[in-house]
């Protein structure tokens, strides 16, 4: 436990250097090498705190819960009940039983309700962890997504509802509103831009930026001392976009995720990653 904390502190320090480097726009130097060293250290399962979430998620997955006293192992994430390998690489996808396109988090809530008979109100209330507040969803996503490591992002776009979600997601990406007239495209549709010192990936086109981004979520956020999922990332971006609070696990977020996965197709998943 002590190792990750020290490593995390070192990373913050290194990231501070990264900021200065970015401002000065100098070529790669010693501080960059240092950051790379910390990065490598932190993708080590024994020192990236995100792997603690993976372990907790594994317990939650196989634990009998709810009035039916069954585990989530009967849950079909698209590859068959209980099959986890590679499932995350193809999510969000269409599920015939719910007649909906669902991302991992929507699907898990559906399974908790239908398979376990669990009241998900409390689970949703804890969708994002905080000090002294664990999140089952973050832990489960970390565990399940980790089972797709080494696999390529491959959004299935065969069902008409999957195609609709991708097209709506694309339209939403360009939909402006809120008091600042922002859309996702305001911040994520050009190469090499930044807001203050924060680099902004261009997520509007297929390519490396989108692949590396989508293949690295869920991630352990050092600044928040928590594992975060794509639902949290989009919640935070809609906050910066000055839009209303988005409903957790709802259709516009899933549509946006489908669209982003189409831009990221072929990216090799390696999670949980670690970020600022």
């Amino acid at each position, binding site marked *: 436990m002590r190792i990750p904390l020290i490593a995390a502190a070192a990373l913050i320090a290194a990231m501070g250097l990264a*900021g200065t480097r970015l*401002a000065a726009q100098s070529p790669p130097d010693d501080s960059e090498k240092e950051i790379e060293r910390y990065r490598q250290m932190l993708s080590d399962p024994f020192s990236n705190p995100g792997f603690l979430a993976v372990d907790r998620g594994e317990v939650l997955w196989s634990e009998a819960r709810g009035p039916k006293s069954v585990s989530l192992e009967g849950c079909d994430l698209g590859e068959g009940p209980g099959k986890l390998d590679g499932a995350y690489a193809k999510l969000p996808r269409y599920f015939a039983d719910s007649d909906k396109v669902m991302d991992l988090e929507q699907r898990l809530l559906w399974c908790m309700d239908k398979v376990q008979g669990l009241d998900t109100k409390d689970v949703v209330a804890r969708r994002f962890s905080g000090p002294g507040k664990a999140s089952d969803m973050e832990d489960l996503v970390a565990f399940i997504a980790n089972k797709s490591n080494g696999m390529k992002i491959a959004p299935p776009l065969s069902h008409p509802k999957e195609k609709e979600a991708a097209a709506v997601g694309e*339209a939403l990406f360009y*939909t402006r509103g809120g008091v600042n007239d*922002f859309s996702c495209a305001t911040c994520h549709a050009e190469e090499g831009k930044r807001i203050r010192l924060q680099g902004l990936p261009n997520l509007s086109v297929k390519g490396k930026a989108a692949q590396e981004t989508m293949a690295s979520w869920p991630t352990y956020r050092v600044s928040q001392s928590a594992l975060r999922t794509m639902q949290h990332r989009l919640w935070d971006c809609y906050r910066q976009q000055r*839009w209303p609070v*988005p*409903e957790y696990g709802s259709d*516009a977020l899933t549509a946006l995720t489908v669209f982003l996965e189409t831009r990221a197709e072929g990216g090799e998943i390696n999670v949980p990653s670690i970020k600022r």
Partner: protein
Amino acid sequence: MLKLTITLAAGLLVAGQACAQDRPSQAVIDAYIKSTFGKASPEWQARIKPDETLAVCNATRNTPSSAQSEEMLKREAARVAYPADGKFLGDWKKGYQVANNGRGGQFSDPPGTVSGGNCFACHQLDPKEVSYGTLGPSLSAYGKDRKYDPESIKDAYTKVYDSMAVVACSNMPRFGVNKVLSVEQIKDVMAYLFDPESPVNK
């Protein structure tokens, strides 16, 4: 040269059509938006209801036709309110606060939060400040470069009050029209850009 322009225009036209075909109907898009934001208060709902101008920007991905642009520039220009006393320059020190403040308008902001303009998020201003964004052009030495010319001051005021009165579907917020900044705050920002004593011009 003419041929090049025509080819280019034809290419844009084709791209525009492809884009329009791919876009689902607004009713379908709105159903998704409702599922995600439908529980917000009426006041918050109103904020994401596009006005006539944004509806055009959304449907064309910020590339309105020249007829749409012309109409938009005229419509937005009519919305600009100029200072009643005819004075465009306030206090540059207060203007710095406005330019540096990125708070306001987020669902995490406590009620009563005073909104800033967050100009540094997108623009370089004071050349000594290293933490600036690059979504917009550098505004360093903005007033000095324009010789503190009154027409330029008025143009910049128009830009900040309603960016789309100047550039159709500009990526810059319409600070005055959307009531993010008051006329007083915009005057202070103008001073930050145009006062010879402001660090922007040093």
